[in-house]
């Protein structure tokens, strides 16, 4: 695998091909190599070093680039207007919580336009061309730098300029850079000679290309990626349709117009002012201002030790690292609290839930980090207040945040309570440490198992602590199914199971041991949590059915089936019907749970077997008996309504636009076309499973039990239809038997059992007492003798 550095080296052999654009020729941009960092950049000035923040201070601090400062809303307004005036279609933001495999969060604007299909290939789809979008994005790999370098966020607005260029429609590099240059010079009035275009490359999942970062006065404002190759740098082909993917920093554009010491001051506006007021925040403004100007040099990606990262800056400021740390730490903490709470606002509003699993892990980390800072500095700050201030400030642009306010607060209340509960365990842990400082690995283990942050133990964590605990939860990793069968060269299996076929003939395409591949099949393979069909192929029992990419493989009991043979196949209809009912029942329960518990409820996982079905939903606490009953009641109301269950194929983009991202259950792999299963008014999911045609066909649904299986995950086990009925009949039989034994009516059984138990305890006590007395009397008699 070629690294980014190696790819830059390859491209730099031909910079004219990869980076030079018409504008550079027209205006006389010169290509130079930075004397400080060694990067190549294009400029109109005679500068020797580039405008990257590691090479230049933030020059616009106290000297904003525009005459009038713009707040975040005005900044977006002028940028959007510029692109719309230049033929771009404005798009509505996508959720920050992705739900589709392998991402948990929207990490950039461009990820909205591609999915990774089951073969691992990128599948692009653009709702408009060219387009402009402001996408709130979440990234948790830069946590240590938040608050420190004045520009890093876990939640940031990405200005996404996109164009698909096929030679006729859209535009390519020349137009992209011309537009971005005009935005900077004409809208933001930045002098052309103050703009640098730094050469870089982008290697994404299955695609790559060159890119030009544009830097102004020490800050990178945007990065225009020219995606033109499919595959990896070692095995690729040129794309027929090339993609302009320019991502710019919304907060950074705002910052350069305000010239505030940090990007946070510009982005969080009144929220930060209120926070400072509540904390009675006092600091050395002059020192901080001097630090802020050169803080872009502080990069904890390069140095995991904060002391080393700060040493150069401290020297430049003429103070010791200790003095600098003492001075900036409270500000770093305050900015981090502001950033983390805003990230939580977007994530929770979009259905994210702090937990110990998957992406929820990152949300819990930032919440606990923020709470730890408040504790550490003993600030009189309520984190829910900060969250509500953010909502208040952002609602005019994101009204959906206000709509979700109550539920966001409810989730936070539970989480804060949990954080406080860990405090009780802290003294026990400190005691067990008996003066020893735990290693980083031990601290990570402690966070994972107990949810206790180093700050809660009074220990200074390494600056990459939070990056290390979150990196394992950034993307989902799926394991390839291991089957001893080579499917290369086999055609896609024709699927018959959606047509309710149970008896069919097929041609055997491949036999390997117990595995058989047919040209077509009605055997449903285990997928989406639904167990496979069983039945017979030429009288041989089918014991397992597996889908590998687009080929369906049948595992059969030893049998004499030959390649090229036409075989008679029969699916076990009874089992199929039960699985269908259980699968549909799970959709119904999912919809009912959302109605009762709230919008944050999402299917994390599910299993549908012949015996029962289960769904793991995202929810922050155990269900009460009342909630359980209500969910069951709603589910059975849906059944009784005899609602049609619509199953249809839709283009991915259209489906996402119409139904939102809730259609994706945990780990779903979206393809270009989605099979949608809709129970109108209750549940819509992208689902490849088998379902009834009408909710009434499911029969009554019985919740067997609910259980909190992990932090943020509640398991609901159910039975449906005849299976549920048999289950209840069995219970009725047992109750009847117990009533008979107790010689009472069935409704009196609990009372009678209680009485029986009391009676047994009473008699046992009496017998014990009597035995003791007999023992004492015997002793007395002995002594008398």
């Amino acid at each position, binding site marked *: 695998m070629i690294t980014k550095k190696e790819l830059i080296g390859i491209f730099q052999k031909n910079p004219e091909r990869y980076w030079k654009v018409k504008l550079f020729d027209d205006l006389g941009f010169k290509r130079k190599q930075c004397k400080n960092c060694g990067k190549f950049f294009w400029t109109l000035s005679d500068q020797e070093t580039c405008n990257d923040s590691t090479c230049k201070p933030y020059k616009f601090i106290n000297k904003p680039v525009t005459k009038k400062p713009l707040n975040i809303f005005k900044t977006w307004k002028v940028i959007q207007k510029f692109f719309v005036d230049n033929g771009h279609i404005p798009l509505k933001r996508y959720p920050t919580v992705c739900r589709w495999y392998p991402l948990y969060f929207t990490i950039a604007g461009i990820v909205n336009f591609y999915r990774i299909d089951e073969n691992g290939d990128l599948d692009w789809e653009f709702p408009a061309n060219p387009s402009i979008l402001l996408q709130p994005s979440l990234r948790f790999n830069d946590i240590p730098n938040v608050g420190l370098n004045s520009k890093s966020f876990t939640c940031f607005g990405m200005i996404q300029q996109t164009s698909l260029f096929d030679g006729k429609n859209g535009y390519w590099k020349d137009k992209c850079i011309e537009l971005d240059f005009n935005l900077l010079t004409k809208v933001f009035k930045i002098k052309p000679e103050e703009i640098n275009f730094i050469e870089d490359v982008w290697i994404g999942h299955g695609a790559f290309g060159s890119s030009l970062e544009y830097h102004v006065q020490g800050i990178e404002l945007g990065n225009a990626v020219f995606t033109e190759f499919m595959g990896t740098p070692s095995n690729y082909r040129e794309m027929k349709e090339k993609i302009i993917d320019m991502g710019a920093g919304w907060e950074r554009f705002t910052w350069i117009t305000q010239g505030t010491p940090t990007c946070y001051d510009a982005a969080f506006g009144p929220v930060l002012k209120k926070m400072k007021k509540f904390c009675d925040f006092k600091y050395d403004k002059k020192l901080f201002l001097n630090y802020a100007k050169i803080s872009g040099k502080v990069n904890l990606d390069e140095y995991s030790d904060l002391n080393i990262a700060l040493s150069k800056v401290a020297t430049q400021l003429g103070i010791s690292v200790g003095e600098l740390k003492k001075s900036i730490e409270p500000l770093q903490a305050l900015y981090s609290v502001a950033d983390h709470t805003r990230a939580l606002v977007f994530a929770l509003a979009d259905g994210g839930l702090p937990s110990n699993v998957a992406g929820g892990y990152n949300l819990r980390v930032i919440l606990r980090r923020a709470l730890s800072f408040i504790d550490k500095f003993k600030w009189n700050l309520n984190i829910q207040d900060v969250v509500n201030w953010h909502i208040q400030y952002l609602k005019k642009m994101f009204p959906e945040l206000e709509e979700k306010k109550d539920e966001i607060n409810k989730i936070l209340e539970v989480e804060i309570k949990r954080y406080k509960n860990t405090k009780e365990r802290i003294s026990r842990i400190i005691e067990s440490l008996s003066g020893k400082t735990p290693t980083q690995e031990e601290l990570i283990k402690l966070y994972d198992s107990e949810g206790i942050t180093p700050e809660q133990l009074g220990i200074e964590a390494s600056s990459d602590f939070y990056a290390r605990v979150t990196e394992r939860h950034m993307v989902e990793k799926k394991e390839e199914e291991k089957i001893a069968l080579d499917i290369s060269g086999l055609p896609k299996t024709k699927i018959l199971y959606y047509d309710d076929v149970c008896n069919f003939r097929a041609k055997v395409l491949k036999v390997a041991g117990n595995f058989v591949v047919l040209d077509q099949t009605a055997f449903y393979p285990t997928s989406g949590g639904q167990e496979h069909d069983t039945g017979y192929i030429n009288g041989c029992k089918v014991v397992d059915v597996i889908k590998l990419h687009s080929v369906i493989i049948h595992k059969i009991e030893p049998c004499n089936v030959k390649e090229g043979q036409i075989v008679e196949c029969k699916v076990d209809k009874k089992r199929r019907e039960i699985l269908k009912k259980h699968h549909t029942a799970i959709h119904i329960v999912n919809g009912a749970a959302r109605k009762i518990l709230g919008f944050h409820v999402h299917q994390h996982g599910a299993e549908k077997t012949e015996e029962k079905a289960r769904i793991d939903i995202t929810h922050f606490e155990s269900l009460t008996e009342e909630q359980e009953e209500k969910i069951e009641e709603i589910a*059975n109301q849906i059944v009784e309504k005899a609602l049609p269950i619509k199953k249809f194929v839709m283009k991915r983009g259209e489906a996402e636009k119409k139904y939102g991202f809730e259609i994706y259950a945990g780990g779903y792999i979206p393809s270009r076309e989605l099979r949608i299963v809709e129970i109108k008014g209750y549940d819509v999911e992208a689902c490849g499973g088998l379902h009834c045609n009408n909710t009434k066909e499911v029969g*009554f649904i019985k919740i067997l039990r609910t259980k909190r299986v992990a932090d943020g995950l509640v398991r609901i086990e159910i039975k449906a239809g005849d299976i549920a009925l048999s289950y209840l009949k069995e219970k009725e039989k047992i109750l009847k038997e117990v009533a008979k034994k107790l010689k009472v009516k069935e409704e009196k059984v609990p009372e009678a059992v209680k009485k029986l138990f009391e009676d047994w305890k009473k008699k046992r006590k009496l017998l014990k007492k009597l035995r003791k007395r007999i023992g004492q009397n015997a002793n007395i008699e002995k002594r008398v003798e």
Partner: protein
Amino acid sequence: MRISKKEWNKLKKKEKLLKKAAAILRVEEKDLPRVVERFQKEIKEMEEKLK
């Protein structure tokens, strides 16, 4: 197997009664008849001894 809502609710009520009864003795519902029988037997034996 079709069943009316009334019958379904009746069955559910019975399941609840059984669940409640089993919870008193902290046993699984399927074990309740056997456990009740054991308690009855032990009570009888204790009564004999107490006489």
